[in-house]
């Protein structure tokens, strides 16, 4: 039976979207730094946000591999559009989808799939980043539900959000084993949202702090059953790392493609700069790193799709692909030389946007120490 290959078909469709709708305006959007509402709505109309969820439950019937393909292609255009999409498809809606009630589905999940509501993921706190066991946001059991108290920071999309999935401590004595996820609509009394942060890169992605003061939520808004918080975290963090690796692959492609094009055009000392061996060495490293990044990323994604534990592979992919993206963006600015320093060209944007990939999904110091432990030391 002849049929189209879903991975190629989705890639081709999103690539067409990126080439027509994002790349021509990427520099402008980045300069303005506003939430890219129009592009977000178009992605919603295509049903992109449901890529990881089954069709009969309001999704598109895809999987993690297809999700990563979409993230990669979007990041090739503009990392901040990719990160907003990534958040809406995965972290912003995942626990709501799996553990929310039918009413919550109608009121929040389906509108999120249509792009009418935006969801966020709140784990990091002012005094707890890498060490999530140290979070102090509390969910205390009260009659009929929970009271949420605490402060979250670095909330991607926070200023635009309608609801938050919040990692809370239920029992400080249990440290990591006491954590769980709780659903908090923005309009509930006691929720306050800070102005957006001024950031170095991914400038269309708004980020802020969110404070919770005696916010009452009903019992069913607890999204992870008692004792399952840590497991849920380990599962989603693997997928977050695979996705971040895919964003890094997309960014590498953009930096590499621009570099190759420029190396074939720019003339110095009577020849195109691509004829210089030192420029060739840069391009060779970029192309090789890109290939290796793709293999690591899509291996991790395939393992997740097969239901296997992929934390190690996803961590390696995120670490390698992001370092490769940092190097590709760095080399790109060197190949463009003076023009790499100009705000008119994209090279500087790639350079700034790599910093987003470095901390999201775990810093590389933390990843390296995890990988070393898995390797046996």
């Amino acid at each position, binding site marked *: *039976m*002849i*049929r*189209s*290959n*879903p991975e*190629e*078909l*989705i890639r*081709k*469709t999103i690539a*067409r*979207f990126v080439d027509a709708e994002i790349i021509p305006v990427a520099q402008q959007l980045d300069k303005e730094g506003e939430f890219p509402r129009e592009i977000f709505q*178009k992605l919603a*109309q*295509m*049903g*992109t946000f*449901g*890529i990881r969820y089954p*069709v009969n439950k309001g*999704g*598109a*019937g*895809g999987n993690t591999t*297809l999700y990563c393909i979409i993230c990669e292609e979007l990041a090739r255009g503009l990392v901040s559009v990719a990160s907003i999409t990534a958040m809406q498809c995965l972290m912003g809606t995942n626990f709501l989808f799996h553990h929310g009630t039918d009413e919550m589905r109608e009121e929040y999940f389906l509108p999120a799939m249509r792009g009418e509501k935006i969801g966020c993921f709140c784990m990091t706190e002012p005094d707890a980043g890498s060490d999530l066991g140290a979070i102090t946001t509390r969910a205390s059991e009260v009659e009929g539900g929970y009271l949420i108290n605490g402060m979250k920071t670095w909330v991607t999309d926070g200023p635009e959000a309608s609801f938050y999935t919040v990692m809370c401590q239920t029992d400080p004595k249990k440290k990591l084993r006491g954590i769980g996820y709780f659903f908090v609509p923005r309009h509930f009394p006691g929720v306050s949202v800070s102005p957006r942060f001024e950031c170095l890169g991914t400038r269309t992605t708004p980020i802020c702090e969110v404070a919770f003061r005696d916010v009452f939520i009903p019992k069913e808004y607890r999204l992870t059953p008692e004792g399952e918080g840590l497991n849920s975290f380990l599962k989603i963090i693997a997928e977050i790392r695979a996705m971040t690796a895919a964003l890094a692959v997309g960014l590498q492609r953009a930096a590499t493609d621009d570099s190759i094009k420029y190396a074939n055009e720019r003339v110095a000392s009577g020849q195109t700069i691509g004829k210089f061996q030192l420029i060739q060495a840069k391009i060779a490293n970029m192309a090789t790193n890109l290939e290796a990044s793709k293999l690591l990323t899509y291996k991790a994604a395939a393992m997740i799709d097969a239901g296997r534990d992929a934390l190690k592979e996803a961590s390696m992919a995120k670490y390698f692909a992001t370092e490769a993206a940092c190097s590709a963006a760095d080399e790109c600015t060197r190949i463009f030389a003076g023009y790499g320093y100009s705000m008119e060209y994209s090279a500087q944007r790639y350079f700034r946007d790599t910093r987003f990939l470095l901390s999201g999904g775990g810093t590389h110091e933390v990843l390296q120490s995890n990988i070393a432990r898995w390797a046996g030391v």
Partner: protein
Amino acid sequence: MNIIVLIKQVPNTSEVKLDPKTGNLIREGVETIINPDDLHALETAVTLKETYGGTITVLTMGPPQAMDALSEAIGMGADKAILLSDRAFSGADTWATSYTLGKAIQHIGDYDLILAGRQAIDGDTAQVGPQVADFLGLPQVTYVFDIEAVTTDYVVVKRRLEDGYERIQCSLPALLTVIPGAKHPRYPLVSRLLLACREKAPIKIWNAADIRVTTAEIGLDGSLTQVIRTFAPKFERQGEFLEGSTSGMVQNLIARFKENKLI
């Protein structure tokens, strides 16, 4: 309202090059897309369906890879798709292509409207739509950019002219060839793209026997025209910039004119 849309898968952009030795198109590594006019035909069909109901069947003749064009059409909202694929179809000129498409349409049977693109960006003849209409004995309107009214018996359409447009009422069933209109063709729905990839997708593959044609009527054998040679034109004329002071350049120019016996 039942609509049949004819679509063609074409190589993307004008970057397509001819192999200087064989004269054939170099297709390797060139991305394929749905012919741009055909995207507008699809958009028109889906918009009509949203207003008047009915079903949309997409038809293409092409190699197995043309399946992607059909999957995208399903993604945009077509209900069913048919791929006409058979080695015997290959080498068809526009006559044989139109004949094959016409036979397939007769085999589909039930339709009120057939939409085609005005012109394919690779073959560029703009002959297929009109020839299919002629074969089926249907009225046709070409260069349609807007459909103003639809009843069970007729459509009212706007047809682009060089310096304006014509408003035409045309009885149904009819064939329209479409050019870009006001509305940008929609992007496919991700869920429908994935549906199109499944084994149980509403896509059929028909060969020559399925549409009751013999090999003598189709493909290279059924073609009335023969391509003797295909070649990329050589650029033989070359511009030249004259340099120097204004009076120097004018004198130089006059000298050249005289040299070439132009004055």
